């Protein structure tokens, strides 16, 4: 080879893995890097635009919105819509705001996420470290369950909940989310544990640890990254679910999304868009928080498990 290849350091665009510990000394050294940042910022705008619309409109009086200035910044900044959405907006007969529903959602989401994650982890453990004949087919069947449209299961699920005595109760709601969360959580953990050294399990067996002990002491403590992925996934899905929340809850257990929907979806009433947007952002805050806090572990978790064979 006559011409020496570029060294990693001089490349404008190259996988991070190539660049080693090198850091570019400043912005805009090369046209390619300028282009890179332009693209990144452009896509940031794409992702932030709807949020911009929501935030901006949640901070202006309703008059400004209906007068047509939906994209503009508020002329008259106000936090009143936020206060209203939190504690005084009408989401039912009583003007309670979204506040009481937060608790309902949390009571439902936390156990549902915990159960489906834990059971998913156990399933993944069995399916990779204690395999048996037909385990693969079983897993396939389990995974196919992820694709069942929820609208379809509404009526039979209602019947089953009735038979189990869980109709219109928080445990019933938790159960439903648990049932339809298992598929994905098993998928995540199975793929993660498949890459987990089987020798460790053997070593623990020889050390005298039993089935559960190995799980608790050896696998689970090393499952942090994938647990983050699974929790984020389940939390987001369950927190944002409306269909099950509306159908299987009772007057005293309606989750956040149902309240938000009630706030937003009135058909023949006055629509207070500013309050709607404030409520929407508020309702999304827990999930946003999860993403922001756990975001960096998220990629790491995906890396450790679910995208590998």
């Amino acid at each position: 080879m006559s011409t020496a290849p570029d060294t990693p350091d001089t490349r404008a665009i190259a996988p991070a893995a190539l660049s080693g510990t090198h850091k570019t000394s400043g912005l805009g050294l090369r046209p390619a890097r300028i282009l890179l940042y332009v693209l990144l910022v452009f896509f940031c705008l794409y992702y932030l635009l709807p949020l911009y619309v929501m935030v901006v409109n949640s901070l202006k009086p309703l008059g400004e919105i209906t007068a047509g200035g939906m994209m503009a910044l508020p002329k008259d900044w106000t936090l009143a819509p936020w206060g209203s959405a939190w504690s005084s907006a009408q989401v039912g007969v009583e003007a309670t705001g979204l506040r009481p529903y937060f608790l309902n959602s949390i009571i439902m989401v936390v156990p549902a996420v915990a159960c489906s994650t834990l059971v998913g982890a156990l399933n993944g453990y069995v399916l990779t470290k204690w395999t048996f004949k037909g385990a693969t087919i079983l897993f396939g069947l389990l995974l196919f369950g992820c694709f069942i449209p929820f609208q379809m299961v509404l009526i039979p699920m209602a019947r089953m909940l009735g038979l189990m005595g869980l109709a219109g109760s928080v445990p019933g709601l938790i159960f439903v989310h648990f049932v339809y969360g298992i598929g994905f959580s098993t998928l995540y953990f199975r793929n993660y544990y498949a890459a987990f050294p089987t020798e460790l399990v053997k070593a623990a067996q020889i050390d005298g640890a039993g089935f559960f002990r190995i799980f608790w002491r050896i696998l689970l403590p090393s499952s942090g990254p994938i647990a983050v992925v699974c929790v984020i996934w389940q939390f987001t899905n369950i927190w944002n679910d409306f269909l099950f929340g509306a159908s299987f809850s009772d007057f005293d257990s309606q989750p956040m999304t149902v309240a938000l929907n009630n706030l937003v979806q009135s058909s023949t009433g006055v629509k207070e868009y500013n309050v709607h947007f404030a409520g929407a952002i508020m309702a999304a805050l827990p999930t946003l928080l999860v993403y922001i806090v756990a975001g960096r572990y998220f990629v790491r978790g995906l890396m450790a498990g679910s995208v590998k064979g």
Partner: protein
Amino acid sequence: MASSLATLQVGELEMSYLDTAPARGSVADRLRDALPKLVLSPTVAIVAVFVYGFIAFTLYLSFTDSRILPSFGWVGWQNYENLFRIRAWDTAVSNLVIFGVLYIAVCCALGLLLAILLDQRIRAEGFIRTVYLYPMALSFIVTGVAWKWFLDPGIGLQAVVQGWGWTGFEFNWIKDRNMAIYTIVIAAVWQTSGFVMAMFLAGLRGIDSEMLKAAQIDGASTFALYRRIVIPQLRPAFMSAFVVLAHMAIKSYDLVIALTGGGPGTATELPATFMYSYTFTRNQMGIGAASAVIMLMTIAAIIVPYLWSELREKKA
């Protein structure tokens, strides 16, 4: 050392009598052997009832005269015959094809692009990554409204750009029956491409850097490096992304309801909205069930071969 060895020996005696194994074939022993399957069995039972049982139930309903509630008068294939006479169903199915293909393709392409861009040791990576990821956290009940406004030519992008002086600018897809489905794609891509980006980013970070160095020494250009070395190695990430995206495409419901309500006309109807509307708002549970069965069969036709190839391969 000798003394310490002596104590070790004593310890050994203790240990070997500590856990005398139960006699072979005892109940406890058999329980121990069956434990993994026992642990799995609740899941198996749940899936058998709540997935496959319900599928069977729906299949049965699709042959009955159920209207407002399930009823059990057998009507044979009538619901299916009616289903295929309904224009909106054709629209829904062809929309799903357009939507599904575009959505998966664009999400993958954009996700990959963003992942590659983010993988350049850039500044503020954490922040940008969060920006790309956050839409996944939001429910479409309301982001749908924001999108609806943004896409609305009267108040959204078109109005703003025209307000800047480019009066010829047009972006009224959401009002156009032939283009509206693409606005659904735009919003759907917005929601999930960040997630796909994270998957690809994870894939990129997992590639052995020595291999990349080797390829560089072989004289590969950046483009060739990605096309020939990096992207082929992202196959598992593509596969995972496919499962997640396919599952979302098929279940897309909130999105359509919030953005277009299936309109203009029935131009953006999808099978999920069709099924919901026939089962619940139109009191045609039989037809709804028939559409659900067709939907499931379509899903199975796509997913089962994929699962088959993936799982078989892993076994080998």
